C-alpha cells in the first residue's frame, strides 16, 4: 500500500519525512498564505515559488467516499473505504477511512489523521472517525 521510497522527488521529501514522524505536512504559500496539496514547486493559486512547510492539524471532513467491494490488486483486501478528505487548512486529499465499520462512514463526518504502516515505504496518512 505504498510507493517505493526511491521514487520520492525532492519537493515531496518533507511530506514523507512528516509521515515517518507521524505529522501531516502541507505546503503554505508565503505570498498568498494558502495551503496546497499535493506538493509542488510553485503555489498553484498565485504562482509564487516561495513555499514553506507547515504541520496540518490532521483534522478534516469527508467530502466523499466509496466502499470498494472488488479490489483489483492483491495488495488491497476488500471491503475498504476510499475517501476524499477536506483538511481543516483547505486542501483536499485522497485517503482511506480506517478503524471503523465501512457501513458507518458518512459524507460530512469529522475525521482525524493516523498513519498506517506499509511494507515497503513511509507510513501512509489515513483517517479515522474523530469523535471529539
Amino acid at each position, binding site marked *: *500500500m505504498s510507493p517505493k521510497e526511491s521514487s520520492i522527488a525532492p519537493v515531496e521529501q518533507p511530506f514523507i519525512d512528516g509521515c515517518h514522524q507521524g505529522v501531516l505536512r502541507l505546503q503554505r504559500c508565503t505570498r498568498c498564505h494558502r495551503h496546497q496539496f499535493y506538493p509542488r514547486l510553485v503555489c498553484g493559486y498565485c504562482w509564487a515559488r516561495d513555499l514553506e512547510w507547515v504541520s496540518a492539524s490532521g483534522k478534516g471532513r469527508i*467530502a466523499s467516499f*466509496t466502499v*470498494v*467491494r472488488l479490489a483489483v490488486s492483491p495488495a488491497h483486501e476488500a471491503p475498504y473505504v*476510499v475517501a*476524499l478528505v477536506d483538511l481543516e487548512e483547505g486542501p483536499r*486529499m*485522497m485517503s482511506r477511512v480506517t478503524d471503523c465499520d465501512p457501513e458507518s462512514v458518512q459524507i460530512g463526518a469529522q475525521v482525524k489523521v493516523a498513519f498506517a504502516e506499509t511494507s515497503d515505504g513511509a507510513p501512509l496518512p489515513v483517517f479515522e472517525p474523530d469523535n471529539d
Partner: protein
Amino acid sequence: MMGSLRGKVAIVGAADTAVGKVPEMSATELCVDAILRAVADAGLKKGDIDGLVTCNSMSQPMLYHAEAIAEYLQIFPRYCIAAGAGGGTTFSILHHAASAIATGMAETIVIAMADSLRSGLTREQAMLMQSSTGHPRFEQPYGPTVPAYYALIAQAHMAEYGTREEHFAEVAVACRAHAARNPAAQMRDPITVDDVLNSRMIADPLHLLDCSLVSDGGAAIVLTSAERARDFPHDPVYLLGVGEGHIHEHISQAHSLTTSAAREAGARAYDMAGLGPSDMDFAQLYDCFTPTVLVELEDLGFCRKGEGGDFLTSEGIGPTGALPVNTHGGMLSHSHPGNPGSMFALTESVHQLRHDAGKRQVSDAKVGLLHAQGGIMSSHTTLILGREAG
C-alpha cells in the same frame, strides 16, 4: 484571420469493425479494418487520404502509432499524428483535425481508433491499465479502482442533491433499450432498474450493471472540407460546434465533484453552433459509468443542476424518451474497447444524421450533441453535428 469552425468540415465516411469479442483480430488489425471500411464508405481509394489521426492501443502500444498504421497500409500522409489516449481524446482530435483542414494542413483526414481489451491484453497489461489511473504517490497507494473514482462522484451527487441509486440505474436501462434495437451491440437483452440494483456491488453505489463493458473493436471516420463534402456517396454530416474544457487530471484536485468541465466544453460548443440544448434531437453522452451521464445531462444544460435524477425518470433518455441518449447502446451496452469507446457514438451520430440508423432512427433527426470525457471527468470535449452546414 480564421473564423469559427462552424460548418467548415464534414464527416463523409464512417464505419465500425465487429465489436464485442473479436479474438481473431489484433488491435492493429482492428484499426486497419476500421480505416478500410470508413474509406470505402466514403467512396474513396487508397491514394485519396492525406491525413491520418490514430490513438495508441493498450494491447499493442506503439511509439509512433499513426506512422505504424500508415506504414501498414502503405499510405503516405502529409498530416499524421497519434493522439494521447483517454476517452475525451476521441472528440478532441476531431477538433484538431477540423482545424488542420481549415488551415490547409490536409484535405481528407481519417480518424481511426481500435483496441482489443477483451481478447488482447496480457494479465500484466490488464493490471497496468487498472493501476495507471490516479496519482502514483497521493492516490494509487489507497487502492482506488476505476469504478471507485466514479463512485466518489456519485456519492457526492447523492449527498448534495438527493440523487438515488435508482436514478443511475435508469441510465443503464435506457442504454440497454437502445442496444436492443442495434444488431451490432454487445449486450441486447433488456434489463430493469431492479436488475441493476440487484447486480453485484462493485464500489458503493455502483453495481456491476452501472459499469461499462470490456470489448474489442474499432471505428473510423473520414473528415473533409465542407466545400468538397457534397461529392461523396452519402449525405455529409457537418461539424457545427466544438468546445473543450479541462480543469484537473486527478479527481482529488477537481474543483467540484458534482459539476464538471462539461459545462465549459458545452458552452463553447453551443456558442460556436449558435444552438442550445433544446435544439438537440439526440445526445451521445460518455457513459463509462452511469453517473457520468447524469452529471453530463446537467452540465450540458439538458436540465438544471441537481435535477438529473428527475430528468431521467420523468423525461427519459431511452428510445421513447424526451431526449434519446446513446442511441447505439453506449459503452454500457454497445461496446467499450477503452479509449476508442466514444468513436461508436460518433459513427452512430453519422448514421442518425444520414437517416440510415434502421430500427433505432430518431425521427427526422437534424442536430445532435456528443460529449466525451477522459481521465476521471478530466478532459472534456463537446461536438454538435448537423445535417445542414448552416
